[in-house]
C-alpha cells in the first residue's frame, strides 16, 4: 500500500513545531508587513469626518459644510474621552504644527462652543483638509514611500523627499556595503582558519575550537567594548604606534567610532558563523581527492582551485550567507562603535520603534530589509550552484 508523499507517516508529530513556527516567526513578520501599509488610526478617531470627506470631490475647494460639522463633532467626542491628543500627535506627523492646531481648536470647540472655522484660519485652507483626507485612508503607501525617501505631496502626487531629509536609501546602501565587506573579510580570514581546524587533531584541535567558540561565551557588549579599548585614540594600537615612533602623538588614527571600527568589530563578532559551517564541510572531504589530483601532476594552486575550492563551496556559501544576512540586521555593534559614519539601517529602525514611536515607518523599513534579504538570497542561489555536482 502506498502512502501519500504529502503526509508521511507520523506527520502529526510535526504539528507542535508548525504551530510554534507560525506563532513565533510567521505571525510577527506578518504583523510587520501589515503595519507598514495599514494605518487605520485617523479613520478610527474621526469616523464622521472620514465618511463625510468621501463625497468631497473637488479638492482645490473647501469641503462641504457637513464636513466641518462632522470634524467639530468628532473633535468634541475625542475631548470627552480624552483621546484628542492621539489625533493631534498623529496629524502632527504629517505636518509639524498640527498638534497645537488640533488641541487648541478642539478645546475651543468643546469648552466655548466656537464653530470650527473660527478657531483657526488654517481650517479655511483646503490643504489642511486634503491632509486629513489622506491621513484617514486606512491603506497607505506613505510609510513605504518614506522608507525609500519619497513622500506623498499635499496635492496627492508622489515625489522625492526634501533633500535634507533623504536618509534611508543612503543607509540601506551603506548597510549592504558593510555586509559585503564583512562577508568578504570573514571569508579571507575564516577560510584558512577553518582549514586548519579541519585538519588538526588532538590538543591543537581543541585549542583552535576553544578560540573560535570563546566569543560565544562572552557577552556581545564586553567583546565590543574590548575593541574600543584596543582601537580608540588612546588605545592599545595607537599607543604602540606612538611609542614606536611611527606616528606623532597628535596624529593618532581614528580607528573606532566610524565605518572602519564598525567593520572590524563586526568581522570579529561574526567570524565564528563563517568558520563553523565551513570546517564541517571541509572535514567531510576525503583527502584522497587532493592526493589523486597531485599524483596526476596538478600543482598546489591548480589542485586547490579545481578540486578543493569547489568541494568546499557549499560551506563557503552557507557561512557567507549566514554572515551576510546577520550583518544586514546588525544593531548593537554599530550603535556602540559606529559613531557617525558607521550607522546602519537597523539603528534607524530601533530609533523609530523606541523613541519616535513611528512604528509604521519602522515596519516599512523592516519590510524593505526583509525584501532585500529575500532578493539577495534568490540572486545568490542562482549565481552559486549549491548542491549541484561539480564537473
Amino acid at each position: 500500500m502506498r502512502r501519500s508523499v504529502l503526509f508521511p507517516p507520523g506527520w502529526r508529530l510535526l504539528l507542535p513545531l508548525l504551530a510554534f513556527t507560525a506563532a513565533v516567526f510567521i505571525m510577527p513578520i506578518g504583523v510587520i508587513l501589515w503595519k507598514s501599509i495599514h494605518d487605520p488610526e485617523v479613520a478610527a478617531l474621526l469616523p464622521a469626518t472620514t465618511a463625510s470627506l468621501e463625497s468631497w470631490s473637488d479638492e482645490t475647494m473647501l469641503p462641504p459644510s457637513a464636513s466641518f460639522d462632522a470634524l467639530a463633532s468628532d473633535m468634541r467626542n475625542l475631548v470627552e474621552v480624552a483621546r484628542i491628543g492621539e489625533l493631534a500627535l498623529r496629524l502632527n506627523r504629517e505636518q509639524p504644527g498640527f498638534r497645537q492646531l488640533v488641541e487648541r481648536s478642539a478645546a475651543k470647540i468643546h469648552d466655548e462652543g466656537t464653530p470650527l472655522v473660527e478657531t483657526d484660519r488654517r481650517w479655511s485652507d483646503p490643504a489642511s483638509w486634503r491632509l486629513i483626507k489622506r491621513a484617514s485612508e486606512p491603506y497607505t503607501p506613505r510609510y513605504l514611500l518614506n522608507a525609500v525617501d519619497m513622500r506623498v505631496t499635499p496635492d496627492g502626487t508622489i515625489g522625492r523627499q526634501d533633500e535634507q531629509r533623504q536618509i534611508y536609501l543612503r543607509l540601506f546602501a551603506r548597510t549592504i556595503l558593510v555586509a559585503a565587506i564583512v562577508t568578504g573579510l570573514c571569508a579571507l580570514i575564516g577560510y584558512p582558519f577553518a582549514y586548519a581546524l579541519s585538519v588538526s587533531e588532538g590538543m591543537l584541535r581543541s585549542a583552535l575550537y576553544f578560540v573560535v567558540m570563546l566569543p560565544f561565551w562572552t557577552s556581545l557588549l564586553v567583546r565590543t567594548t574590548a575593541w574600543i579599548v584596543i582601537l580608540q585614540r588612546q588605545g592599545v594600537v595607537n599607543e604602540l604606534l606612538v611609542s614606536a615612533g611611527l606616528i606623532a602623538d597628535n596624529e593618532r588614527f581614528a580607528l573606532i567610532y566610524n565605518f572602519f571600527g564598525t567593520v572590524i568589530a563586526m568581522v570579529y563578532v561574526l567570524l565564528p558563523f563563517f568558520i563553523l559551517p565551513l570546517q564541517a564541510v571541509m572535514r567531510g572531504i576525503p583527502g584522497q581527492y587532493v592526493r589523486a589530483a597531485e599524483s596526476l601532476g596538478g600543482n598546489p594552486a591548480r589542485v586547490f582551485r579545481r578540486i578543493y575550492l569547489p568541494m568546499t563551496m557549499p560551506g563557503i556559501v552557507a557561512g557567507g550567507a549566514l554572515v551576510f544576512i546577520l550583518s544586514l540586521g546588525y544593531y548593537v555593534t554599530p550603535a556602540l562603535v559606529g559613531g557617525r559614519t558607521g550607522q546602519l539601517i537597523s539603528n534607524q529602525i530601533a530609533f523609530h520603534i523606541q523613541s519616535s514611536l513611528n512604528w509604521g515607518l519602522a515596519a516599512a523599513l523592516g519590510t524593505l530589509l526583509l525584501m532585500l534579504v529575500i532578493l539577495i538570497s534568490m540572486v545568490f542561489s542562482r549565481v552559486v550552484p549549491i548542491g549541484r555536482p561539480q564537473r
Partner: protein
Amino acid sequence: MHVSRLLRAMSVCILVAGTHAAYAADSLTVVSYGGQYTASQRVAHYEPFARKTGIEIKSVDYNGGLAELVAQVRSGSVSWDVVDVEMQDLERGCSDGLFERVDLDKLPSGTDGKPAKEDFLDGALHPCGVGSVVWSNVIAVNDPAFAGRTGPQTIDDFFDVAAFPGKRGLPKRPNALLEWALMADGVEPASVYEVLSTPEGLDRAFRKLDTIKDESVFWETGAQMIQLLVDGEVAMSTAYNGRIQGAISDDGKPLRIVWDRQIWNADYYAVVRGSREKAAAEDFVRFATGTEALAAQARVIAYGPIRRSAEALIDPKIAATLPTASVNFQNALAFNAAWWTDHGDVVNERYAAWLAQ
C-alpha cells in the same frame, strides 16, 4: 538585533496579558532610569515611603522612551504604576493618553509654607506629572587636554575650533544641540525656539554644526559620553550635569562643567493610566515630590530639587554644584519639550541625514 527588538516590542502586547496581577496590593512598581539615579531615588524616596506607609516599592529600570508604556496601556495590561519620565516623553505621553491626570491642588505645600504652585519652578507642574529633579544639558571639559592653557568657558568656545582645538563629543540626537548651535551663532536664548521654527533658522543651526562636524565624535548613551571624556578621546563634550558631577566628586575625574547657557530639563513622576494601584501611586508621587524627599535626593546626586523651598535644606557646598544654584542658573535656557514634540519628526530625520553625510 533589530528583528528581535521589533518582535519584543510587538509581542509585549501578547505577553503582558499573561502577567496579570502578579503584584500584591501592598506594593507599587516604580520605573526609572537605573544606575546612580535610581539609587538616589531608592534612598530618598522609595525606602522612606515604604517605612511611612508599609507599601513596598518594586524598582524596575528602563531606558526612557514610551514604547513599552504604549504597549502596556494600549493592551490594557498595565504592570507599571509610576514612571520617571523626561519632559519630552511626558508631553508626548500626556497627549497620547498614557498617564493619569494629576490633581495639582492636593500637592503638599513647601516646608516654608508656600503653596505648591508657587514652590515649584515654572513648568514643573504638568497636567500629567509632577516634576522632581532639574537636570541640565551642559558642556563638560576634560581639563588635562588643555594643560597649561585655559580651556573653553562658554558655548561660543565649544564651537570655536581654532581657539580650542580638540575633539568634541556630540550626541546622536539633536535635542539641545541645535539650540546651542544657534546661541553660539549669536541668537539670544529667549528667541532660540522662535528662530528654530523657521526654515532659515534650522539651516543656520545646521551650518553652525558643520563647523565642528569633522572635529566631532558621536555618542549614543550617557555612559559612552563619560567614557569618551575620561579616556581622553574627546577634549570636551555635550553632557548631562549629573553624570559629570558624579565622575568629579565620586571618582575624582579631572572634568569641569561649563554652566554657560545650560539647557535645563526636568524629570517627572507620572502615574501610568490604568494602574491597578492608582490611589497608592498618587500618594507616592505626592510624597516623593515633597520638599524633604527632594532635598534628600539632591544630597546624593547632583540634580537640582525642583521645589524652591528645598534649597534651604541642602548643604551650601552641595547646592553650589546643582544646576539650580543661582550662579549657575543665570543665563539658563529652559528646554522646550512642546517644540520638540511638534518638530521632532522632521528635525530628527534631518539630523540623521546630516550625520550620514
